[in-house]
């Protein structure tokens, strides 16, 4: 009975606006490079200490984000952390002796994995493991080292 055209128009606009806002929120506020499973390949890396690395932390090479962390688990036999990453399939020529380090971006320290290219002629592919890894720098250890070194100078 409420066939008023102005009402229908207004409601339509409102709903469109609302859905637009929802889309905005889901796309523009979250990681834009949301690598979907289809165009990526999975790679593993083991670390002694992952610091504050989280799932979805970015994986970068030469400063460019090429993938992200999908899982962090603890291997209780080898007593080390196992990090699973996915890398965009476009970058399929990463030497398999590249090293992966856990670095800190910006001052507030959200951590990411930085890959440094090696020289190998074989490349990382689905299921490869990165063998050369550098754990996260733990501030306390650094200070501890500094103190020890400092005192041994006396």
């Amino acid at each position, binding site marked *: 009975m*409420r066939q008023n055209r102005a009402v229908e128009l207004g409601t339509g606009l409102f709903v469109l606006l*609302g859905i637009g*806002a*929802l889309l*905005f929120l*889901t796309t523009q*506020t979250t990681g834009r490079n949301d690598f979907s499973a289809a165009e990526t390949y999975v790679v593993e890396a083991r670390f002694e200490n992952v610091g504050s690395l989280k799932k979805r932390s970015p994986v970068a090479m030469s400063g460019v984000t090429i993938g992200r962390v999908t899982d962090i688990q603890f291997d209780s036999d080898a007593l080390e952390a196992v990090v699973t990453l996915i890398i965009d399939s476009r970058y399929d020529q990463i030497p398999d002796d590249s090293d992966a380090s856990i670095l800190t971006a*910006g001052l507030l320290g*959200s951590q990411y994995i930085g890959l440094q290219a090696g020289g190998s002629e074989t490349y990382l592919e689905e299921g490869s493991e990165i063998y050369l890894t550098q754990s996260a720098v733990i501030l306390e250890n650094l200070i501890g080292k500094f103190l020890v070194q400092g005192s041994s100078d006396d």
Partner: protein
Amino acid sequence: MNLLRELWRSVAEFLRTFGAMALFFVDLLRYSPSTLFKRFNLVVYQVFNAGALSIVIIMVCGLFVGGVLGLQAFANLERFNAEEATGILAGFALVKEIGPVITALLFAGRAGTALASEIGLMKATDQLSAMEMMAVNPMHRVLVPRFLGGIISMPLLTAVFTMVGLLGAHLVAVEMQGVDVGAYWQQLQQTMDLDDVYEGITKSIVFGVVASLLAVWEGYNAVPTAEGVGRATTRTVVGTAIAVLILDFMITAYLL
């Protein structure tokens, strides 16, 4: 001894009301599918009534709340030399908390009172009785459309509020305070998860259900006098505010 009995009576009364409201809620749900199919145009009109007509207040408030968040975030992060995190602070606050909660409160004030007073007035002027007499179920025609209209409108309003808020914070941070545009959005995007956005949306849906249920309930059970309708609208706002804030705590605690 008398005090205890009074206390018990209040508790019993509260439980009784709560139970009645729960049954009412189930009734509303029961009539929802048939209302959607047979009287969709009524629902559309109520979405307009509750949502489209609230959009102005939502956008204006969203802009300024976002702006204030931007101001505060920047000013307080400056002490730690962490101004680039302004985007993160404002963004998280808006998406997860401020957006859903403030939208719910604004909704209760503008749309909730409108719904409650409309229904209360219909009750006071015998329109609901007349409908029942004409063998038309007021559920289908009056109550469920307003209930659904509110539920559909709330998440949409929250999304608009949050989006405008983010833009407001952006304006303040980037234009007024000189935070780097790239840093602002990039830090936000890297830190925020889809899960965080979902949390905000979930809250808005829950708040929408609560606010709509309370408004329709108070209107339907209002004392059929002018004074009664007034009291019903007051109770709608107060009740929604309390319920939303308590639920917000519970949902946040559960999801963290």
